[in-house]
């Protein structure tokens, strides 16, 4: 193979699907072939059967919906506050100097470690779930957005000034449109992280959601259901990722590589 030699679109799809097939095949051989006890790992067939019964008999669709609601709700809350703060920090250096040290510190506080505290403060209701996601995504978003906004090419700003831009319009007409595609990419990435936080939040003190179903299934040693739940999370992530990428391509045609 030649380094960096591109592959055709068709070959790319074939290879991509190929690995999925190989993965499931290895899983099937390991379980159906009796190499791994059923107690620890369900076979693909059991997983599909269990998934079907979850959807039809146990109202798992509702759990999926509630989990999506929590992720999206907490994430929108975090983004709504992180966007203005990140933009201000990126554009105005004194604002950055004021907030940056604290935010840098706060981003390393693990969101999951806050769960016991948040249960104490907000109970085990929806507020607590939203707060876990908020803490997990807000600080990351702020810092990354600030970097994206502040990373503008200096000569573009100079050009705007010589064309008569005021300080305010340099922010709105140069810094913001310049950072927009990167900010969209940051939102896509952090939304992916928010998915891991929601499941952790649901594993502890929850009576609904995909994470709650997974803990319940563990008590029943139903690995088929656990794997089905995990795969559903992966699928939703894949779909949201795809939608984000598609939207970004259409919103920012000028940024496409």
């Amino acid at each position, binding site marked *: 193979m030649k380094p960096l030699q591109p592959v055709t679109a068709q070959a790319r799809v074939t290879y991509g699907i190929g690995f999925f097939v190989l993965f499931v095949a290895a899983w099937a051989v390991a379980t159906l072939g009796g190499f791994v006890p059923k107690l620890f790992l369900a076979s693909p067939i059991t997983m599909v059967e269990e998934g079907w019964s979850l959807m039809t008999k146990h109202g798992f669709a509702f759990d999926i919906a509630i989990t999506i609601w929590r992720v999206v709700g907490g994430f929108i809350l975090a983004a709504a506050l992180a966007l203005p703060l990140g933009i201000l920090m990126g554009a105005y250096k004194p604002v950055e100097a004021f907030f940056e040290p604290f935010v840098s510190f706060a981003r390393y506080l693990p969101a999951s470690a806050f769960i016991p505290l948040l249960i104490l403060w907000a109970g085990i209701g929806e507020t607590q779930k939203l707060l876990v996601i908020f803490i997990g995504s807000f600080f990351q978003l702020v810092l990354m957005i600030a970097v994206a906004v502040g990373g503008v*090419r200096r*000569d573009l700003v*100079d050009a705007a000034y*010589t*064309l008569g831009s005021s300080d305010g319009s340099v922010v709105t007409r140069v810094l913001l449109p310049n950072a927009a595609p990167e900010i969209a990419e940051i939102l896509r990435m952090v939304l992916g992280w928010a998915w891991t936080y929601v499941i952790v939040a649901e594993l502890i003190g929850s009576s609904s959601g995909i994470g709650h179903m997974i803990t319940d299934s563990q008590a029943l040693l139903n690995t088929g259901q656990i794997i089905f739940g995990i795969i559903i999370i992966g699928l939703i992530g894949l779909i949201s990722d795809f939608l984000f990428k598609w939207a970004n391509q259409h919103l920012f*045609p*000028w*940024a496409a590589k």
Partner: protein
Amino acid sequence: MSKLSIEAVGKLFPARGAAEPTRALTPTTLAIADNDFITILGPSGCGKSTLLRIVAGLETASEGRVLLDGQPVTGPGADRGMVFQSYTLFPWLTIIENIAFGLRERGVSERERLEVARKWAERVGLKGFENHYPKQLSGGMQQRTAIARALANDPKILLLDEPFGALDNQTRALMQEMLLGIWEREQKTVMFVTHDVEEAIFMASRVVVMSARPGRIKADIAVDLPHPRPYTIKTSAAFVALKERLVEEIRVEVVGAH
């Protein structure tokens, strides 16, 4: 009275740590008449770009002052249009929107904006590319757009910082003719920084030669070649004589600096 007067403008970059402050420009005085096309010619790092950026208001002078129509320059503004060596079109705007950028900042109505921008797109030879994004255009076309964008604002003076420096020779020659054609028709005051001797003579009514760092003016030479100037003028005896003289002036500086 001159259009632009540069009065004892100098630039000193502050000291960093133990290092001495660096002088980029010795106090320089220069007057530019209305509708004059002057080129500032000098070796790399001679402070010619610094001087231009001070006139643009993008950098502050350590001493002296710049007057435009008798008014002191305090910061960047739409009355001094600038074209940079790097490609500075806004990548998220189409060509026509880039050209109209300054007009929009001034609150000109959309209809009028587009009208002016189309006119300029046509004058610089970009008809048919109005709705392209900058990345779809060649370097030469991007610089044409940058010139149109600066001129659409109708500035009092046009400042150009080695605008064709990154272009290949053929494209560069075409761009020179285009800009000179615009100047001959529109009558603008132009200050053009370059390190290319031929370019400096071909474009200018006056060539100001700067010394190596710290920069100062070492020669100020009028170019009396007739207008309009076809590219063939570059082989005329008068042109060649001027070129020989300027090449020698610059050579001394470059040799001295090494």
